[in-house]
């Protein structure tokens, strides 16, 4: 992307300056539009609920308070859901990287017996799938309804990620494999000890994809899971948004029992409202993604490019 510094500099004419201005303005507008909803919610989540009702919060809290977050963090339901989300993200990402990565590595080896068969086997599902209903049946017949593993097992293989990893491993010099084979190493060792350590960009990228996929997933939890104790964060956020009563209960439950809380709440002149609770829960839900993402960002653009070269 960087312009060649040695390029012959063409004379700038008036229209160039006009274009430069237009582009810069448009890009800055995109920047603001993308960020503003986030900043607005963050400000509301950090603003006193009574003050928020008056309206006019922009991108900074007017009456700063951490009370909304206190309410979110003192709710045992949130902790439980957060635990489920973290568990599925960690197990799902590590498992997915191992299974999908190993598959991608093996399929990048030209010496793999039945390689053509495996390739076609992996190609078919990219164009045709069973659809929602047959998938539901398989999950049901396997006894995965109301089972934590329904979050993990179906997502261990991801074909797009597999292809990205395969292209990456295929692009590494073959001499690495050959010399290790001569030394008598088996493929499992070659994969973990030689290819894995030199593939940090792609592994970071795929880890990000798997992690985000698990962190953000809500469909499996709402179709296959009835047990409230197994619901992840996204589902809790959905219930808060969909049933205002849920958030009111949460606000009310802040002090001891619900009744006492409600009374205390009234006495304090309703110190919190649904909107503040919703926004702070949402921020709590996305914080880990916001923290991890900038560290992995420098890898994933590279990772995508490696994949797109070979498609």
């Amino acid at each position, binding site marked *: *992307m*960087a312009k*060649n510094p040695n*390029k012959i500099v063409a004379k700038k004419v008036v229209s160039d300056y006009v274009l*430069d201005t237009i*582009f*810069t303005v*448009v*890009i800055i507008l*995109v*920047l603001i539009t*993308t*960020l503003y*909803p986030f900043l*607005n*919610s963050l400000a*509301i989540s950090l603003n006193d609920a009574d003050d*928020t009702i008056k*309206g006019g*919060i*922009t991108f900074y809290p007017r009456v700063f308070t951490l009370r909304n977050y206190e309410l979110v963090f003192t709710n045992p339901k949130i902790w439980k859901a957060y635990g489920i989300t973290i568990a599925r993200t960690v197990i799902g990402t590590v498992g997915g990287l191992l299974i999908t990565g*190993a*598959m991608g590595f*093996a*399929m990048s*080896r030209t*010496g*793999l017996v039945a390689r053509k068969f495996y390739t076609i086997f992996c190609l*078919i*599902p990219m*164009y045709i*799938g*069973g*659809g*929602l*209903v*047959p*998938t*539901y049946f*398989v999950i049901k017949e396997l006894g995965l309804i109301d089972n934590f593993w329904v979050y993990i*097992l*179906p997502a*261990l*293989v991801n074909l797009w990620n597999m292809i990205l990893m395969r292209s990456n491993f295929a692009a590494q010099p073959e001499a690495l494999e050959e010399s290790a084979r001569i030394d008598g190493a088996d*493929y*499992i060792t070659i*994969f973990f000890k030689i290819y894995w350590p030199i593939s940090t960009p792609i592994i970071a990228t795929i880890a*990000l994809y798997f992690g*985000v996929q698990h*962190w*953000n997933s809500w469909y499996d939890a709402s179709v296959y899971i009835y047990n409230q104790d197994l619901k992840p964060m996204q589902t809790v956020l*959905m219930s808060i*948004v*969909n049933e205002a009563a849920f958030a009111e209960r949460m606000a009310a439950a802040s002090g001891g029992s619900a009744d006492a809380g409600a009374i205390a709440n009234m006495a304090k002149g309703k110190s919190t409202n649904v*909107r503040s609770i919703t*926004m702070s829960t*949402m921020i709590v*839900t996305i914080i880990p993604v916001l923290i991890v993402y*900038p560290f992995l960002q420098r890898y994933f653009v590279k990772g*995508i490019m490696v994949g797109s070269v070979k498609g």
Partner: protein
Amino acid sequence: MRLKKTQANGQIAVKRKKNVFLRMLEQWDLQILVIPGILLMIVFTYLPIYGILMGFQEYKLGDFPGMSQWVGLKYFKELLTAADFYRVLRNTLAISLLKMFIGFPLPILFAVMLNELQFPLLRKTVQTVSYLPHFISWVVGATLMFDFLAVDGGAVNEMLMAIGLVKEPIGFFMKGEYFWALVLCTDIWKELGWNSIIFISAITSISQDMYEAADIDGATRLQKMWYITIQSIMPTIILMFIFQVGGLLNANFDQIMQFTKQMTNAMLRDYADVLDTYIYRMGISLRRFSFGTAGGLLKSVVNFALLCLANKIADMVGETALF
């Protein structure tokens, strides 16, 4: 020397005739890396494909899937003659076509503009920020938008009223007529940056010599953008467009489910019910399993046919094709 060579050839010939399974056993250390994934795919990818049989059968509760009575195309006919079907199809096509003709070109334009931008620091910042919304779920996206576009105290309505564009706040999520535009705009908000990555990386690989040659020929900036940048990334654009066509009947299930509060918002249903949500409502919520399966199959067959058609056209016109 000669003898040795034939022997070696002979060995290879013998090896070739060996059973595939024996050869797989010999390289167990490599096979064991693929097989877990393949087994998982058989269970979670191929069994559902087998389950498509239900779409041609009369599934009754307690039947073993795929072993029910055959009814041929009964459920496909039922689907095509269902009262809601044409409304559902209209919504699906409207949303998809809007995304195809407005949502698709914008990331290309964005990538070209970024490339022309004179401030590297601003470019880096914009890139980082614009990829970000891609990484949040539509659950969060909808939560943000419900609040941002809310009637009471939503930032957009407050802004519109402050500058006097509207007197009454607009109920963005209360009128079906707004829904298509809403889905389109929020989708652009969430995916613009992410969808531009592939074009940005294509632009990066354009040779600078072409721009220099154009400078010598006295080309204007806009001419260079059109004749060099856009034309050079045309293969990528065509490829992405083929994928877009192949997804014509998917109208972002996640987004629409969240925007309609899992289709419980009755005010929006006339404009928001798309094929995927319809299949979900019929097949999973109302437990009409055979009907839902038939719907899912019809959708993926049509999508696949469209992909092939788009690919064929691209091939005939002489542009890069997918296969």
